[in-house]
């Protein structure tokens, strides 16, 4: 069981908490403490809106160990509205075709389960399409 490894990332996994560089205002996710834009220290926490657009996507049919129950699944690079890009699965797709540029929003879902029914269940962010009828 790898409890502390996942527990310490709860702010990132459940609410996309990243950082803002106090020097150049660049928004950073994942948090990385040194701003890649200006090279200064960046440790100011920043809450991302969770909205973005699909930069690219694909389907995984041959998953790594631990992800078999979800396969096939769609994994994407999502460009967040605030700038950074994240890797995440797309979910709640229904019959809707995904395209590059599709607007998506963050939701919390089960990422994987380790071991049997007594194993650790790891939750985190995935993204689903923003329905056209919803207010932006």
């Amino acid at each position, binding site marked *: 069981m790898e409890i502390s490894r996942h527990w310490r990332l709860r702010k990132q996994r459940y609410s996309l908490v990243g950082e803002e560089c106090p020097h150049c205002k660049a928004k950073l996710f994942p948090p990385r403490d040194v701003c*890649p834009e200006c090279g200064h220290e960046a440790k100011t926490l920043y809450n991302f809106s969770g909205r973005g657009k699909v930069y690219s996507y*694909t*389907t995984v049919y041959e998953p*790594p*160990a631990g992800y078999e129950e979800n396969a096939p699944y769609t994994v994407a690079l999502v460009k967040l509205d605030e700038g950074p890009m994240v*890797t995440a699965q797309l979910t709640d797709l229904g019959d809707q075709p995904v395209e590059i540029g599709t607007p998506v929003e963050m939701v919390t879902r089960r*990422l994987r389960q380790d071991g049997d029914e007594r194993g650790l269940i790891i939750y*985190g962010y995935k993204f689903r399409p923003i329905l056209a009828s919803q207010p932006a």
Partner: protein
Amino acid sequence: MVEVVIAGIGQTRVEEHWAVSLRELAFMAIEQAQLDAGGLQPQVLYVGNMLAPQLSHQAHLATLLADFAGLTGIEAATVEAAGASGGAALRAGYLAVASGQADVALVVGVEKFTDVVGSGVEAALATSSDGDYEAIHGLTSTAQAALLMRRYMHEFNVPRQAFAGFPVTAHANGAGNKNAMYQKAITPETYHKAGVVSDPLNMFDIAPNADGAAALVLARPDVLPPHASPLPVRIAGSSSVSDTLALHDRNDPLSFQAARLSVERACQRARISPLQVDLFELYDLYSIYGVLSLESAGFAQRGEGWKLVHDDHISLKGTMPVSTMGGLKARGNPGGATGIYQVVEAVQQLRGQAGVNQIPEARRALVQCLGGPAAIAVTHVLEVGS
């Protein structure tokens, strides 16, 4: 800096070596390279390996291999840089000799993929990506390549068929390499009909993982036996460059910056332009990596590398032959050994020992391996003659 030459090469066939263990496989390549180098005795051993701690439950590989090869007492260390482990081990050996710390260095790349079957291999490979922010989302190495290929096709309006040239060229060249995993040419129709693995990637866009070991003996020229035959190949340039580990952390994922910089730096050290090489052993783990590597090295403009492939410039008779002994696609991809195989094959070309795949009067080769989607790139320039 002391000049460094490659005095000996060795390789096993890339395949499923069910009956051979990790240490035995490595020793098969070491023995050949030492024989080829006329029995030069190394003072250091560098091992390039990617996954032995996970796939073979064996870490501390360099000590094991020095021990098994009867070299106990020499310096030994393992170098891990994902898919670029072989190239990184070569660079360590190069630096050891160039710095004067060793007269002779032995470098071996070894990988055994087939000790584990199924989803365990994908899980092991995924540990080379960002564990907390990529692998946890079920992203695989193959999926990373698919994300890049789809974006490339979208941004530059490229049809999927345009990528057929890579596997077709690689398999044509693999047919002339007795150490290749696949020694049979394929047609473009075979590519077009292949099943999709991770859209838009199909089966023939992906190099097969398999077992293999390859070895090099490096030396300073003055310790070579007199009248060494064949001609020693010089390492004229060597460079290793890192990028962000995660693909999502790059401003422009379609630009392999580490690959570009390491070609620039290796060529600068060799005092050449990339256009002055006779062949380019590139890292075609996926067809899209081949395309992006051609662009990064400066052989094509951004978004136009696929045209070199489509117009057949990369075959043995083309203007810039790549994967001349089959590349990763047809020779196979033995993980941390791949970077050493590439160099062994380039040495075969420069020595005139490449058989039916020989590029006439090949004098200079560019060799590059990548870890992850060019999260690290290791590049060497090899030369023969004056």
